[in-house]
C-alpha cells in the first residue's frame, strides 16, 4: 500500500471509530456512568483532532508519526479508563 493509501485507511478507521463511539454514547446511562461518558467523549474529541490533523497535511510524509502514536495511546487509555471506575458516579 502506498503512503497516501495509509492516510486514507487511517482516516477511514478514525471516522468509523467516531461513528461507533457516538452510537455507543447514545445508550450510556448518564446518571450512573458519567465517568464513562466523559472518557468516551474525550476519546471522540481526540479522534476528531487526529482526523483533522491527518486531513490538513498535504501528504503522509508531512504527518508526524509521533503525534499519531501519542493520539493512539491516548485513545487506548481513554477507552480503558472507565474500567478503573466500576462504581460509576457519584
Amino acid at each position, binding site marked *: 500500500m502506498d503512503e497516501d493509501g495509509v492516510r486514507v485507511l487511517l482516516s477511514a478507521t478514525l471516522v468509523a471509530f467516531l461513528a461507533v463511539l457516538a452510537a455507543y454514547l447514545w445508550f450510556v446511562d448518564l446518571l450512573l456512568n*458519567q465517568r464513562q461518558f466523559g472518557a468516551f467523549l474525550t476519546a471522540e474529541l481526540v479522534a476528531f*483532532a487526529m482526523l483533522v490533523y491527518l486531513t*490538513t497535511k498535504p501528504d503522509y510524509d508531512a504527518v508526524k508519526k509521533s503525534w499519531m502514536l501519542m493520539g493512539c495511546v491516548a485513545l487506548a487509555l*481513554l477507552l480503558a479508563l472507565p474500567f478503573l471506575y466500576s462504581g460509576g458516579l457519584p
Partner: protein
Amino acid sequence: MRRGSLSASIQRIAEWIDSRIGLTNSMLRPGPDYSLNVFYWLGALMVMAFILQGITGLLMLLYYTPTVTEAYSSTLFIIKYVPLGNLIETIHLYSAYAMILLAFLHLMRGYFVSVQKKPRELMWVVGMLMGLVVLGFGLTGYLLPWTVVSKSATDVTIGMISFMPGQLGPALKFLIAGPGSDAAELARFFDLHIVLLPAVFLILLVFKMYMFEIHGAAEPATRLSGKVREVPWFPEIFLYFAMLSAIFLALLIVVAVVFPISLPPEFSPAAASTFTPQPEWYFLWVYQILKFSVFEGPSIALALGLITALLLLLFVLPFFDRGKERNPARRPIYTTIGVIAVCEALLLTVWGYLTPGQVIADSDAAIITGGVAIVVSIISWITYRTRNQVALGLARARSFAAFMGTPFRIPTLTGIFVLLLAVSSSSLATTINLIASPWSAMFFPTLILAALSFIAMVLVVRGLAVSNRGREVQP
C-alpha cells in the same frame, strides 16, 4: 437534485450572505502563516472556555436555587441526582480554572513579546480589564455552592476589600457584597456572576475583537526577514482552531473525569469556626502577601495599595515602554522583571497553599522573596552576558573567516598587495640599515617608498574589507 446543482446552490447562498455581511473581508479573511501557532490562540481558547462556562452554567441554572437555605442542597442535587450533573458541575469549575490560567498565559506571552506596543496599546488595556473580569467570575462563582470552604474564603476576600484606603473599601464592599446579610451577599454574587460580569466581558470582547480586526495579530517578536505567507481562513485556519479546540476540550473533560468535584460541608457558623479559610489558588499570592507580619493590622491597606499600584503599572505598561524593540533577547531589563514577577507569583502561591492562616515573619518574607529576585537577576545577567559574548564571538569568527577567504576570490588586489608588501619590506629594511648614516642619498627615498607602499597596502586591505562586507552577514 443532482450533486453539482446542490453545491452550486449552496455556493450561491453563501455568496449572497457574504455579500450582505462581508465576513470574508473581515473576520474570515486570510491570515498570516505565523498565526498557526498555539501561542496565538491562547485568547481564543480563553473565549472558548467562557462559552463552555456559559453552556454548563445555563444547564446548572435549571436546578440551582440562589438562596441561603437552598443553594447548597440544590448544588448537591445537581451532583447526585441530575444526569451528567457531576460532570457538568466539574467541567464548569475546571473551565473557570482554565479560563484564569489561559488569561494569565495570554498576559505573560503578551508581556514577553511586547504585543502592547503601538498600535495595540488599547488592546492591552482592554485585555487587562477582561482579565480582572475573569477573576471576578472566579470570586463570585466560588460562593454560589454555599459550602464552608467557599463562604469562609469569600468572607476573607471581602474582609480584605473593606481594608482599601478611605471610603473606597466600604463602597466596594457594599457594591460587591450588599448591605451585610448572608442572603444579600449570595443574591448579589449570583447577579454579578450570571448577569453583570458576562455582559461586561462580552462588551469588552466585542471591543477587543473590533481592534483586532483593525490591527491584526502582532508579528513574531523574533522575526527578522522573509515574506509572510497568507493562509486562507477556510480550511487552514478553521481546521487548525478546530483541532486546538478539540484537544483543549479533551484535556478539560479528561481532568473532570479523573478528578470529579466533591462538595465540602454546608456553611454554618459552627462549621466555619473549625475551618481555616483559604482563597482559591488564583488569589493565593495576594493572600500570602497579606500574611506578612509587616502588613498586619491597619498596614493591610498599605499592602492592598501596593498590589493595586502594581496592577495599575501593568495597565499603563504600553504608555511608558515605548521603545520599538520587541525581541525579549534584546530587552534584558523588561524580560528580567517579567521573569521575577512570574517566579514570585508562583512562589507566593505555593507558599500560601502550604501555610494556611500562618503569619509570616518579616525576615522570612524578605529573605525568600528577595532571594528569588536576586537569584533570578543573577541568572538573567549571566544568561544575557553569555549570549552576547557568544553572539559577538560568532560574528567576529564569521567575519574573520570571510575576510581570510577574500584574497583567494580577488586575485588582482591580492597580487598588488603582495607586490606592495615586497616593496615596503625591502625599502623598510634598507631604511633601517641606513639609520646609522641618515644623510646618505638613499635614506629619504627608501623611507618615502616604505611609507607610500604602507599607505597603498592599507588602501588595498581596505578595498578587500569593503568587498568582503556583503559576505559578513551571511551565516
